[in-house]
Every structure is written in C-alpha cells, then in structure tokens.
C-alpha cells in the first residue's frame, strides 16, 4: 500500500532520513517506532508529499505520490503530530470543514461527520471551540478531523503525546477499531508500549535509518536476550557475582539497590541455574521477577542506548 525506497532527506548538513525503505501492506497496523528526532515525522511528511526530498521513491496505492495525486490523497487520512484545527470553528465545524475537502455531497458529509463525532465520543462538545477543550479531547478532535472522510489509509503521527493514560487507551482502542473496519494504519510513536499493544508490524527508526523491522516476535528473535530476571538479594560479593556471570546462558549480571538484574539468552534453564547457585552459596533472596524482552531491549541491543532517555 505504501512503498518507500531509499529515501534520502537532508536539512542542510543534517541527514534526517538515511536511505529509508518501508513496505506497508494493506490491512495492517504498521508501527514506526523511534526516539525523538529519529525522523518519524520527516518520513511521514515526505510520504505525504509535503516535504521535498533529495533521493528516493514513494508510491501509495501503487501510484507515485505527488502533490497532485488527488486520487490517492482522497483515500488518505492524516493526523498530525501537533493539533491542527481552527480555533475559530467549533468541534462540529472543524470536522465538517476538513471532511468537506474530501466529500462533496452534503448529506453524506453530515452523516460522516456525525459518525466521526460518535467515534471519538465528542457528542457533548459539538458546539465547543477548541480553546475550551482539554488536551485529551483536543487530541480526539484532531483525530476526528483526519478520519471523518473514511480513508483507506490512515497515518497518525504520535497522536497520543501529552494525553493522560485513560484517554490514550481510548485512542488506541479507536485506532484498532478503525483497522478492523478495514483501514490500513501507519502509527508513529516513541512509546514502545503503544506500539507493542497495537501494531502488527514494526519498523524501528534511529537517526533516519531503519535499524530493524518485522513483527514483534521477529524483532525480539533478532536479539540474544531471551529473558530478564530480577531477584531481590540481600548481600552478595564481587566474587559470587563473577561466578554468576559465568553460568551457562547468562549474558550479564548487575547488582543494583539490593537487586540482582540478570539477562539471559534464549535457551531455557538459566533461572534454575541461578537459583541453584544462590541456594548452594547460601545467599538469601526474596521475590523473583521474570520479564520477556521488550522493544526497548531490541533498541538497546542494536543501538546501545535506551529508546527513551
């Protein structure tokens, strides 16, 4: 559905997109995950033909994307990173205005606008001006403006920034619903939890490059980390730590604030080996937690830094 090949975009000396390639298929929720400044918005704006770029090819719906590709544009809905509505217009008017740029038939438009208002649950706020809406409601209005015309492809650029968790969940559920109704979704975020919860396929972006892409399972399979074990331990000495590190399957061991943080590889059995070791050396321990790797771990292992700093 979207095909991006070798996209190169410079802002002066800064390379914002470094030969970026993406392939987004019909019906999926595609996540573009990357830290601040990794080039997510730049990529989206290039895809939308808002930004010029230095090199590369962009096709949407099988056609080259240009500012004049009205047929394609008619089927795209866009939710910008920042709220983009008119302060002088009410909630209803804002949605109607944007919807009217796509849908000319008045009665059909009325129906679509009402549906969009129901969808984001702004029914009680139709006559409100954006200035009077809270942050979360404003985000919902921003989304409604982008989707009212029922596009086949919806691109959302960090739609949940600065939204409280409850509103955020509502938004994520809504996006999943849109996908179920048949829309292909491109979702950018720097929150890995959102992307993990929502997206069927993910590309991880860093410094304008795709450093990994695939389904969650594929991404997690790429790295050596298989499990992260945290054990409350009361005292342990350097020598014992060193011996722990040499156990089979253990990748790294840290002792922070009376907690042992052990990263182990994909093969099962590391936890038993660690617990055996603690028992035989009579090291007292309390609760034990085990976590599977997250996308943050994927990012950390590939780039050597945290997704969120």
């Amino acid at each position, binding site marked *: 559905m979207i095909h991006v090949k070798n996209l190169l975009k410079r802002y002066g000396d800064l390379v914002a997109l470094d030969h970026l390639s993406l392939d987004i298929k019909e019906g999926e929720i595609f996540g573009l995950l990357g830290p601040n400044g990794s080039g997510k918005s730049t990529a989206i704006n290039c895809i939308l033909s808002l*930004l010029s770029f230095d090199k590369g090819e962009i096709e949407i719906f099988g056609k080259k994307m240009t500012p004049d590709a009205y047929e394609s544009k008619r089927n795209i809905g866009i939710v910008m*990173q920042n709220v*983009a509505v*008119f302060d002088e217009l009410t909630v209803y008017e804002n949605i109607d205005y944007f919807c009217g*740029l796509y849908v*000319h038939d008045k009665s059909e438009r009325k129906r679509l606008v009402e549906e969009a208002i129901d969808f984001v649950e702004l029914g009680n706020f139709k006559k409100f001006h954006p200035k009077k809406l809270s942050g979360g409601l404003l985000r919902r209005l921003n989304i409604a403006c982008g989707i009212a015309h029922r596009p086949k492809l919806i691109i959302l650029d960090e739609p949940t920034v600065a939204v409280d968790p409850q509103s955020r969940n509502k938004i994520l559920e809504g996006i999943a619903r849109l996908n179920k109704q048949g829309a292909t979704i491109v979702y950018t975020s720097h929150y890995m939890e959102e992307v993990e919860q929502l997206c069927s396929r993910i590309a991880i972006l860093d410094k304008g490059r795709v450093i990994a892409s695939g389904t969650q399972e594929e991404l997690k399979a790429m790295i050596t980390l298989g499990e992260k074990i945290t054990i409350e331990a009361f005292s342990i000495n350097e020598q014992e730590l060193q011996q722990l590190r040499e156990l089979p399957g253990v990748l790294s061991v840290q002792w922070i604030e009376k907690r042992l943080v052990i990263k182990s590889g994909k093969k099962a059995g590391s936890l038993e080996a660690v617990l055996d070791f603690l028992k035989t050396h009579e090291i007292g321990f309390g609760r034990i937690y085990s976590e599977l790797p997250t996308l943050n771990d994927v990012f950390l292992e590939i780039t050597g830094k945290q997704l969120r700093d």
Partner: protein
Amino acid sequence: MFAHIFFYRFKCLIRDKQLVFWTLLFPILLGTFFYMAFSNLNDEESFHPIHAAVVPSGNSHYDASFVEVLRSVSKGKNRLFTMKTAASQAEADRWLKAGKIDGYFSSGETIQLTVNESGLNQSIMKSFVDQYRTNSAAVAQIAKDNPNALQNGLLQDLSDRRSYVKEVSGSGAEPNNVLNYFYVLIAMACLYGSFWGSKEIMDIQADQTERAARINTAPIHKLKAFIAGSLAALLILFTEILILLAYLRFGLKIDFGPRAGFVVLTALLGSILGISFGAFISAVVKAGEGLKIACLIFVTMAGSFLSGMMYQNMKYIVSQHVPLLSWLNPVNLLTDAFYALYYYDNLYRFALNAGMMVLFIIVFCAGTYLIIRRRKYARL
C-alpha cells in the same frame, strides 16, 4: 468545494475578534476621535475673512469695477475679505507693516498685489487677483452696464472662498481643512486589512502552521483554496471599509466630493491592496506570527504618518522633498486618491494614484504567487 472553503474561511475570519477590532472598530473610534478634536477646526468656521485694503488709482475707469467687485466679495457672513480703503499707498504700507492687513490691492490698469509674507491668505489674495485679471474685461463691462448682475451669480465664482482654498492647497500650500485626516484614516483601515491577507497565507502555507499542512494533504489545489480564502477576506475587508465610509460620510458628514462611484471604487482598490499586501508580507516573512504583525503594523503606521495622519503637513513635506516616497507609500496613494476625487474636477491625479495602486497589487500578487506556488517544502 470552492464554496465550501469560501464559506468556512469567511467564518474563520469573521470570528477573529481581534482582527475585526483593528480593521473596523479601531478606525471608527479613531475617526470619531478626530471628528471631536477637529469639530471646531471645520473649514467653514475656521476661515476668517482676510483683512485686506485697496488703494484706488484715482482713475475711475479702472477703479469703479474693481472696487465694486471687492465690495461684493466683502459682504455677508461668508465674505472673503474684510476690506478697507486706503487713502494712499503709504497708508496701506503702514497698515501692512502694523499687521492690520494681510495685503493690499492697488487698482490701476493692472491690479497689483502687495504682501509681505507668504501664507494661505496671501495665496488666496493672489489667486483672486489672477481670476480678476482674466475676467476683468467682462466684469468691467457688466459693472458698468448692470452693477446688480454682479451680485446675482456672476461673481459667485470669484467670491467662492472654497474654490480658492482648493486651488491654493492644490499647489502645495496648507489646505484649510481636516479632510485629509479622514482620508488617511480610511487608507490606514485598508492597510490594516493586510492582517486578513496574512491570515490566509498562514492557513495555506504548510511550513507556517499545522492547519495549513493538513489542508495541503487534502485532494485540492492549494492555489484554489487560497483564492477562495482570499475572496472571503476581501469580502470582509471591503464590507468593513464601506461601513467605515458610510459612517464618515453620513455619521460624521465628511465630504468625499460628488463622485460616490469612484469613492467606492477607491475603497475596493484599497481593500485589494490591503489583502494582497498582507499576503505578500506574510509569504515573505516566514518567521513567527509576531514578526509578521509587527511588519504590517510598522508599514501601516509609518505610511499613515507620512501621509499626514498625525501631522497634516507631513504629506506635503514628503511630496515636496521625497516625491518618490509618496509614490511608494501605499497609504499615501489611497489618501491621495480620495483627496484627488474631492479636490479636482478632472480625474488625472486620481488615475495616477489608482494606476500606482494597481501596479502595487500586481507586484504583491505576483510575488505571493511565486512564493506559494511551490507545493512541496524543503522544511516544515
């Protein structure tokens, strides 16, 4: 689609209370303020008859008609002169020196005018003499045959004070009225209308606002959307200027001369000038809304000042010493167009101003087009 955008842009603009204040309420308030400040400076009331004297030549062939004419323009409430007759030139000179009179006429084969400084009154005396000279043969004849005819209209021209004021002010001296203040006011309102044009640009240039970026992703040509919006802006501004004009004309009784059609045409030109100017500045000055507004206010206020908004003579000082500046000042072009419609019978000077405005509009529109026709941006 065009109608849809026009309609919504109209709503967006008209609900911007700040802009409505600056482009409509503010000029009306300022006009009312001017009116109150100047109401006792009104031209009819502030014109005091000129103190003048005549020195007869002693030759009744010359004296009779001239003295008769002088007497007829020195009578009544709206008289041009307060006339004294001097026994001799020496006496008239004494009066002149003592400041009792502004000048004196010496009758004779050719009428002489003696003044010792220059000013509005002196200029009026001068043009009175000029007029008399051109018409003297006819006047002399009529005065001899039928002295009453002089009062009954023939001398109307010669004694119409306003025609002198007009003529004199046209030649660069200080006009004795306050109309110019109101003309600058309308011009200022038109240029404040540039805010509307600026807003249109900000809502269509994707590198200026996110709203505009969103419009740019819709299946509509950017220029089409921009033109629809600008027409909405123009409709609003033109209506505002017409309201202001109506208030000045019918509320404050400001005189715009007899050519209402041309006055409205000038208002339309001024509105287009304002919108296109705002669009151009907003397209050129990409950085921040504050800087744009500062630019627009600066040009409008500086232009208004140079056109005589705060100090009436400024307009003449500029047109005498830096004529180029008065042709490059859009506020002055508009002011002068209104002024020309009021003062001149022929349309030459009006046409010059209107032509310059059209030229400006073309430059602003072309410049705006060149900047906004790009549909992909290097950065957002």
